[in-house]
């Protein structure tokens, strides 16, 4: 009935942890931990006024970026949103380049011209992120088109929020990607809120996966943000796309944003959501549960390594110079 294969009722079964090697587990935990600690440091530094860039933190929703990116190859690409630190780091974006960018330094990944909302690392195939909701979805699709033509089995994962699915361009892209059987993974990070507006005030129904399936795109829902479930759903989807057996695939991962929409603080006091929700999600923290899957020594080694990396990146950002005035007018046109 639906292109791309069997109907799975949207839900994805939890994979067996014992199927994962210690190397897999370590790598996944390391990625989760790195993102968590990097963003916690951003939140700590922010009030000092050294970072003059509106930051949208992913703390609490790292599992989507990590689960998906862990199943990708280095030569696959990702596109993200202004809430893009996790996407960038999970795909192997340069940590120092990210911190320097937040500080507005010349050594930043966008030379200080982009800030937190416009991270990019073409060496790691992180396409630039955008501050305008939904805009990167069709651009990721253009990459998928180019990849398909190139014929090397590369795929693109496009990350976007639940809010982005309200933009017309989302549906236009679903249709075209399916029509052309493009190797594109649509990844909806559904955290239930757009700024402070809950989904119930924005969606007539919550049957997003069903909507997407009518375009002939298989859709999977991971309702608890489980990093391993996201990873295995991605692995399966990507393998089918690489072999040419499948066109685009859609994943909806339910997750929760622990911090305010923009900025380093919490915002439970302003009244649009209750702290009980946070407590529920915090009890299934994916960084913590992946950490627990490792033995204590291995985990401690990862934690130490991450601390060093983050501290080095911050030092790098602080010590880097600001761009020279002439840079204002550079890169307006490509030459």
């Amino acid at each position, binding site marked *: 009935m639906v292109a791309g294969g069997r109907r799975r009722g949207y839900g994805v079964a939890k994979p067996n942890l014992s199927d994962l090697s210690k190397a897999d587990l370590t790598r996944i935990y390391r990625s989760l931990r790195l993102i968590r600690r990097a963003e916690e440091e951003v939140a700590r530094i922010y009030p000092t006024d050294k970072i*003059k860039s509106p930051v949208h933190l992913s703390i609490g929703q790292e599992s989507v970026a990590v689960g998906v990116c862990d199943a990708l190859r280095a030569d696959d690409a990702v596109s993200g949103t202004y809430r893009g630190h996790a996407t960038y780091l999970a795909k192997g974006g340069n940590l120092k380049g990210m911190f320097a960018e937040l500080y507005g330094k010349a050594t930043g990944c966008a030379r*200080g*011209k982009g800030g937190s909302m416009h991270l990019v690392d073409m060496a790691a195939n992180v396409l630039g992120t*955008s*501050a305008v909701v939904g805009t990167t979805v069709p651009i990721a699709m253009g990459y998928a088109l180019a990849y398909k033509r190139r014929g090397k089995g590369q795929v693109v994962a496009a990350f976007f929020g639940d809010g982005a699915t309200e933009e017309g361009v989302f549906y236009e892209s679903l249709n075209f990607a399916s029509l052309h059987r493009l190797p594109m993974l649509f990844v909806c990070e559904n955290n239930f809120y757009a700024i402070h*507006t809950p989904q119930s005030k*924005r969606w007539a129904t919550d049957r997003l996966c069903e909507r997407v399936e009518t375009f002939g795109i298989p859709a999977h829902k991971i309702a608890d943000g489980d990093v391993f479930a996201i990873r295995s759903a991605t692995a399966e989807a990507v393998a089918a796309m690489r072999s040419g057996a499948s066109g685009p695939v859609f994943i909806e991962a339910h997750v929760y944003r622990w911090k305010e929409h923009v900025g380093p603080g919490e915002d439970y006091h302003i009244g649009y959501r209750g702290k009980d929700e946070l407590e529920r999600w915090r009890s299934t923290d994916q960084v913590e549960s992946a950490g627990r899957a490792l033995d204590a020594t291995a985990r401690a080694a990862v934690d130490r390594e991450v601390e060093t990396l983050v501290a080095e990146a911050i030092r790098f950002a602080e010590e880097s110079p600001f*761009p020279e*005035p002439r*840079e204002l007018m550079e890169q307006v046109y490509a030459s």
Partner: protein
Amino acid sequence: MPPEAAHPGRILRYVDALKEAVIQEMERDPSVFLFGLDVDDPKGIQGSTLGLQQRFGRDRVFNTPLSEDAMSGMAIGAAMAGMRPIHVHIRMDFLMLCMNQLINMAAKAHYMYGGSVKVPMVVRSMIGKSWGQGAQHSQGLHAMFMHVPGLKVVAPSNAHDAKGCLIAAIRDDNPTIFVEHRLLYPTEAYTPEAPFTVPLGKGRVAMKGDDITMVGVSNMVVECLRSAELLAEVGIRAEVIDPISLVPLDVDTIIASARRTKRLLVVDNAWTCGGASAEIVARVFEEVGSEAGIAVKRMGFMPTTCPTTPALEALYYPNPGTIAETAHRMVKPKDKSWRPDPERAKLAYQSQFRGPF
């Protein structure tokens, strides 16, 4: 400023003036309604829509999905059906998603249907700045709308005009693009409590002077006034004009001033290429001819994309220092160039504004 003399009132913040205008018009006219992303948010578009839903109910004040294109079309349809919608956007940049409906439908309907329909709607949109808002959150795009007949474009620079223009725009039978600047929101001005209109199409002399005419667009009026104070200290008396309305444009007020001062400096909160400043200068010259001997100069964003790093952002915008320096060079071309102390020439907001957003 002159509004003070003309209409004594209370001191009101720009953001509260916007809200007061909407409240008074909604009370007066049941066909007025307000909607947009986040209008019923706990922060309510920086406070400008706070409490409106509680006051007027969910039918008249409502939030929308992230669907700017469809929501614009909806507003046009409702306006054609006799309502008076106000569509609010937290950033002017997002109007790019509305372009097709605004330009191909809203601007055209009255004409192409031979006058049989009207589109009395207001599109409120905010220009952002600072704290690394950067490329996609700080653009002044009013010139794109000025290009298209059928749309009105206003950019009030103070609370008084914000209230008067918004009421005028709501009552106007045409689609009006209402340009606000984020940095103006906390600024205060004398504003009458009773409803009043500031006509769309009439500019104002905000400061009198004989040596040079400075026209500021949106928040650049404020920066021109600051630079005029600095210029006064070196004996240059600048006249500052606030056009308030860009379409229709009160070119007569500008011409009368420029004829007298023989110098015209237009400062926009946007790029100069193909912009409002180009239009203003061209209109003046078409009218007065080159024999009037008026020297002209335009200032605006540097012709590049807005960077996020403060090291470069500071160079990107006109500021009271660069404006005063340019004016000085125009008035005293033979003197050696002068620029006021940078500490004193900071942008008007810099002493009071802090992130994050």
